[in-house]
């Protein structure tokens, strides 16, 4: 511990709590209040309503919520698959190739999501791989964006994994596929669950690339929030954000429970 005095520790904790409240909690609290605000002219809303929230659960908005969920689950699953595959491949590749592959797999973190959206739009807007105007281009864009985070999470766990597990399993007569599916992947499961949760959370909130590529029949909830805010309808947008927040919390909690299950043989 860096600070030994009780008073010093208390001061540090207070400063941290204040900073956390200001940067994280206050904006969230404002969104929650705004979701229930009928009018807001002072420090707090002048009058409250549940109308915006009811509006956010109409068929149209629920459809957007479902689209967001489906996109996030598909992109999250694909990201974990590709990210894990990438991490395993990089771990066993020659040093130079591993370094190049590692950089490429991290690239989407370095470039703006708008750049990813634009590149997908240009790349997949003509046959033979015509994805433009379909839901698949949205899922593909989200997958590209979140795979880097999934790869990063699984790759870090793989580096910490004692290579002796796989070596001993091999010496006991297990062929590489058996070692992978019975030993390595079960041991990576907590990291893969974390990667899935992170990917889904990021995908649920993605708007930069989506807005470049989404077709009319595959509009995600964040796009709806953006559109409403753009039109000056801040309170309905806040209600929609609250729905998105609740959905993300429920999904991630469920995934967290799944990840904590003791590994089966």
């Amino acid at each position: 511990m860096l600070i030994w005095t009780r008073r010093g520790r208390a001061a540090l904790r207070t400063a941290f709590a204040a900073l956390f409240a200001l940067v994280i909690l206050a904006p969230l609290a404002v969104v929650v209040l705004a979701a229930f605000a009928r009018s807001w002219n002072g420090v707090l809303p002048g009058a409250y309503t549940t109308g915006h929230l009811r509006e956010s659960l109409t068929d149209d908005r629920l459809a957007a919520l479902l689209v967001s969920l489906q996109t996030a689950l598909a992109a999250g699953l694909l990201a974990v698959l590709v990210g894990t595959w990438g991490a395993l491949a990089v771990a066993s590749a020659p040093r130079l190739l591993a370094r190049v592959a590692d950089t490429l797999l991290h690239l989407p973190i370095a470039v703006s999501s708008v750049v990813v959206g634009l590149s997908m739009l240009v790349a997949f807007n003509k046959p033979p791989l015509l994805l433009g105007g379909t839901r698949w281009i949205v899922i593909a864009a989200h997958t590209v964006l979140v795979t880097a985070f999934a790869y990063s999470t699984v790759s870090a766990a793989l580096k910490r994994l004692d290579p002796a597990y796989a070596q001993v399993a091999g010496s006991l007569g297990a062929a590489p596929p058996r070692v992978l599916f019975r030993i390595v992947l079960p041991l990576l499961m907590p990291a893969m669950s974390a990667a899935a949760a992170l990917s889904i959370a990021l995908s649920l909130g993605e708007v930069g690339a989506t807005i470049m590529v989404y077709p009319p029949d595959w509009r995600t909830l964040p796009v709806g929030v953006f559109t409403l805010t753009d039109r000056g309808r801040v309170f309905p947008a806040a209600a929609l954000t609250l729905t998105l927040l609740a959905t993300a919390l429920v999904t991630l909690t469920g995934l967290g429970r799944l990840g904590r299950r003791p590994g089966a043989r």
Partner: protein
Amino acid sequence: MTSTLTPVPATAVEAPAIGWDGVSVRYGDAHALRDLTLDVARGETVALLGPSGSGKSTALKAVAGFVRPTSGRVLLGGRDVTGEPPHRRGVGVVVQSYALFPHMKVEDNVAFGLRARRLPRAEVAARVTEMLAMVGMTAHRGKLPRELSGGQQQRIAIARALAIRPPVLLLDEPLSALDARLRQDMLDELRRLRGELPDTAIVYVTHDQTEALVLADRIAIMRDARLVDVGPADELYHRPPSAFTAEFLGGANLIPAEAVAGGARVGDRTVPAAHSAVASGPALLCVRPHALTVEVPGPDGLPGRVTAVQWRGSGYRLEVALDCGATVSADLPALTGVPAAGEPAAVRVGAACVVAREEP
């Protein structure tokens, strides 16, 4: 015990169970193992003994297939397995960290190799029961590895390696993670197990000379990625072929001397030696700390001055700076009266041998 799982060719019956034939392993410019040639016979235990970075673990990994030799051949029962992956070698391995699969119960850990070989379920169950009984862990079969102590984990790692009935068992510093008391118990346990595996060739990697002396039929001393000396444990101890072996195996004092017939000359005194690797000329008088006695100065013994006295419970360790320039350590029983630090003394040499000086 012969493997029912990895058939040994008839031509290989007389071949050594393990053979390193000029094996070298390099990582870039760094040599992890240089030109190792060594055989281990069926039923023999060979300890690879050396300090950290001496190449002993690399030698073991080359047999297990965990590292690929840069040059040379690895032979198992006369069969060249240099290019074969670990799962085709049929070798039992116990690593330093045990590497018990944390998501599997004890019984599933032991059964892993048997299931990988697709043995019938009844045979797997019977073999697991037999192995757990052998290491005295039957009561713990349903536990997860994290619920076991270090010693118990080690027993399971051994049971898992032996379950496949390998003709070769490789043990990589299996006791190094245990505390001193448990290490002694497990050493006794390993000796007992050794007796139950009369046909299994065992390679035991360690940096602890006691483990090597207790368990091994032969000891291979390694240093700087090379094999320095190899021979029966008692022979290496009593008649070390080199200064390094004398010092590493038993912590011998090495006193610069001139080899003469029947012993060595230190200063103006001649010390008799039971064995001499050098006929004449510059050499080192090799004498264990327990073979020295420290007395009041007199006509006998090598004159010097006590520089330090350490009480070690069962006895004393004295550091004595000899007049000839060398400093020696002497272990004396607790009941003996010992001189204090700073007092003059004469060091009388008991059993000694003469070894060659090392090239600078």
